[in-house]
């Protein structure tokens, strides 16, 4: 039934072949089979045409494979080669001496000890542990030892094209020494002041984003972690401890900020022009006694006896740290603006940094008002309560940004890599974002200076003052609800007119800001600026 007359005819077939390869042999005159009344038999298409398209499909598939090769072998190659799980890293770690890590003054933070066959890491300063981390054959690596593992072992340098030529070098490994911006004296002072209190200190050079100190207490002894014999027991014990010494509180600890968050609210308000420096709220003086009623919730100011005779403006409200004023401001600013301006500081994302960071948040994220559940949450968040959670690094960046006229620098630890072949790679300071224009940043800065040096502000935060040096800052007392003692916070910078250091200090359960964090920050900034107290 499928037979066509033409197929039986050798002469037609021969002529068809003469006309060109495989032209139709089926002919349209075949009787239409009864069971397919609609079918009209037509000549099948030439094969050569469809072959071209098939070839095109094959070409596209192989193009995708070539793109895959390029992706893994060019774009992702460095990342893959420095992954600590890569066996290459383990082999290189055994074969090549690892680079040394220095602080800003040339003090050695990590070095090799032992013989060539039994090489081991040694960490002279225990205080550097939250920054430097460790490198162990058993537990892998943490801190800068992890981030720069490939450069320290010499698998990867940061110079473009260097990997391309590796196969032509005699010595396949080219370990680099790390030169960091850490000031080990300041770091040690931060640990001394924290003592046995849990907490964290982050100090940053505002104009460059270079991290000067990054302390997290309690911490661990990296020399015991890398000990091949006792390391396992030690780490197991560390993991058991309920005060989490392995957690880097400075970059990954999430804390309620309390009043130090008012600086973020101020930036959102001034930046979006929802408030101005002279903004006042009529009812605020009397609400000092009654509380400010927001949809059934009363916002209260705890401190009495100051500034009840007239409505406060922005400077005064910041100096006395008025929750009521900031709750009003928060509602004026609105949920969208507050979230948007906070995200300009990096809230909501992991801060790109050489150590692992946790994202800070302004709200729980699941409410209808840009993540806020209602106006009550928004009003409370505006002065740093409700669901606001921040890392100390994030708050140090906030202070540092105000100090640097609104330009936020990318935080960084490593200044320079010097490879064993003599080549030097500089990692320059990078601007991250202009969070707010310089004029408004200075207004916020002025308010922060009042909060430390003003007649009322000095009551709370005066202890942060560096003697003889204009100092700006903001203290915070983060209520945790219930009977728990509040976290004690301070963020600030000095000198206020030409900042050299910005700082964030938190003491967990340390009580009011004035009690713990404020004097610690004063001592640390004074130390760093070389001012005796």
């Amino acid at each position: 039934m499928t037979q066509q007359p033409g197929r039986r005819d050798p002469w037609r077939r021969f002529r068809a072949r003469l006309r060109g390869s495989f032209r139709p042999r089926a002919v349209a005159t075949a009787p239409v089979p009864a069971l397919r009344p609609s079918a009209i038999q037509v000549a099948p298409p030439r094969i050569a045409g469809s072959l071209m398209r098939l070839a095109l499909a094959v070409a596209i598939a192989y193009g995708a494979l070539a793109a895959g090769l390029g992706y893994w072998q060019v774009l992702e190659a460095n990342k893959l080669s420095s992954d600590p799980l890569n066996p290459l890293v383990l082999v290189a770690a055994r074969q090549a001496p690892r680079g040394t890590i220095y602080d800003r003054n040339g003090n050695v933070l990590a070095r090799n000890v032992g013989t060539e066959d039994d090489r081991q890491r040694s960490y002279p300063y225990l205080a550097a542990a939250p920054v430097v981390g460790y490198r162990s054959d058993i537990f892998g690596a943490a801190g800068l030892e992890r981030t720069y593992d490939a450069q320290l072992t010499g698998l990867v340098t940061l110079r473009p094209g260097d990997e391309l030529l590796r196969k032509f070098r005699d010595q396949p490994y080219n370990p680099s020494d790390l030169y960091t911006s850490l000031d080990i004296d300041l770091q040690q002072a931060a640990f001394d002041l924290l003592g046995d209190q849990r907490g964290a200190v982050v100090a940053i050079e505002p104009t460059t984003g270079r991290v000067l100190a990054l302390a997290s207490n309690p911490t661990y002894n990296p020399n015991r972690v890398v000990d091949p014999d006792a390391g396992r027991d030690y780490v197991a014990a560390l993991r058991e401890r309920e005060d989490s010494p392995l957690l880097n509180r400075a970059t990954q600890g999430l804390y309620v900020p309390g009043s130090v968050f008012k600086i973020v609210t101020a930036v959102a308000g001034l930046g979006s022009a929802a408030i101005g420096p002279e903004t006042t709220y009529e009812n605020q003086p009397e609400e000092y006694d009654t509380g400010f009623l927001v949809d059934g919730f009363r916002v209260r100011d705890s401190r009495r006896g100051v500034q009840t005779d007239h409505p406060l403006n922005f400077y005064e409200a910041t100096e006395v740290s008025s929750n009521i004023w900031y709750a009003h401001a928060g509602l004026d600013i609105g949920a969208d603006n507050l979230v948007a301006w906070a995200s300009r500081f990096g809230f909501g994302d992991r801060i790109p940094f050489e150590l692992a960071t946790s994202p800070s948040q302004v709200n729980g994220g699941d409410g209808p008002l840009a993540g806020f559940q209602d106006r009550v949450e928004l009003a409370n968040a505006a002065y740093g309560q409700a669901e606001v959670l921040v890392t100390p690094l994030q708050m140090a960046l906030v202070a540092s940004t105000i100090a640097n006229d609104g330009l936020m620098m990318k935080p960084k630890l490593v200044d320079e890599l010097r490879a064993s072949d003599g080549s030097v790679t500089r990692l320059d300071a990078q601007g991250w974002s202009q969070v707010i224009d310089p004029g408004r940043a200075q207004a916020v800065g002025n308010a922060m200076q009042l909060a430390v040096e003003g007649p009322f502000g000095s009551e709370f935060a005066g202890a942060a003052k560096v003697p003889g040096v204009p100092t700006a800052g903001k203290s915070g007392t983060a209520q945790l609800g219930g009977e728990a003692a509040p976290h004690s916070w301070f963020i600030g910078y000095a000198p206020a007119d030409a900042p050299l250091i910005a700082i964030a200090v938190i003491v967990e359960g340390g009580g009011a800001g004035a009690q713990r964090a404020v004097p610690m920050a004063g001592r640390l900034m004074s130390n760093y600026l070389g001012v005796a107290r």
Partner: protein
Amino acid sequence: MIAMRRALFSVGIRPHLRWRELGLLTIVALTLVVGWASLQSFRSGQLEMGEASLLFTYLLAIFVIHTAFVITGRRMDEILFPTAAMLAGISLLLMERLPQDLVTQQILGRELGLADVQLAWTLLGFTVLAATAILVRSDGWLRRYKYTWAALGIGLLLLVFVFGEVTGGARLTLVIGPISGQPSELLKVILVVFLAGYLAENRSLLSSASTRVGPFRLPPLPYLLPMLALWGLALAIVIVQRDLGAALLYFLVFLGLLYVATRRASYVVLGLLLFLAGSAVLYLAFPHVQDRVDIWLNPFTDPQGAGYQVIRALYAYGRGGVLGTGLGAGLPQVGSVPSIPAIHTDFIFAALAEEMGMLGALGVLGLYVLIAQRGFRIAATAADDFRALLATGLTLVIVVQAAIIAGGNLRVVPLTGITLPFVSYGGSSLLVNGAVIGLLLALSDRGVEPPPPDQRTSMSSRIGRRARRAGGRLEEALS
């Protein structure tokens, strides 16, 4: 010389020189010698060839095959064989370079390691290649008995259920006495022969539309039934045997052939929709399919467990970079543990990309593209539909298979275990792919016997016609 020529002429053989093939084989030989020297010099630290009998045995073999082609005087394609010889040569370099104890076999009281065994299989595979290319002078035996071939292939596959050996969760290897092999490799060629024969016969019907289902115009059901039934059976068996790579290969080759035969984009779209539906069913029905897809999407969720193999391969790419570490300088094992499980079979492409770099891997991909170009060219100039479709199918078998495993290695598609033709370790694969190239060479010969004027008196097509009639009655009854 002249006397010899005359002697050959007297038995009907006219030698024909193949200069292009000779030149290309010389380039292949020089490249492999340089590669071997590079490997041995890296090992010993000084410039030397080391113990090179393995390499020279191989080079001797490919020139002997070339001479055989010349003497028998067949006017075949001169590029396909050097391409295959290059791929197999690269494979030998890699096998020589990998730890030899990955595979050991006792033969005649001697213990052979990975490279020796691979050389033995390569020589056997190339013997099959040469024999097929020289001896096949007619395709009647293929086109006439397509149902018989298909039945044999499927029977062989079914035997795996009885005499099969389970490796890596999949029942792939047929073991009968001392002989073992993977029938799914052989079946891919048999399926191509069957599909080419069937499609060539029914091409005009299949490309003229009749039934409309939604936006798709379908050919009459009875004309598809025998083909779909056989192909579906093969597909079902390999899926049950967990040979997902073979299943994917069968499917893509079928789709490619169907398109070439009919030039109907709607078939391809329909096929892809069926593929998506089928994949969804497989994904929901089989945990091992889910695992494959999950590993493909997120290997780093379990870097020491499920994602281990894939991640280790990615590291290999990273180590290789653009120029590669150089032969011997990569890291196929740490201590005594291979850095990638199955590095000599499923992951040979990663080993290659590590030591030869992106450029080397691109070169190998280019060799497969070259095979595609030659194969499609042979198809486009073939004497009739059957030969054209057969050449297309044979080309696709090699090219698509290489793309499936390279794509799996590169995380472009989910990983399915299948060999990289001519490069992966494995006997069945080398023998069958040798036969595939051999057939392509035979098809490329303009002097091959012309296609038979008619083929529909054969037993098998009578059976097929009856099946179609039965299907037709079925459709009539349904409508």
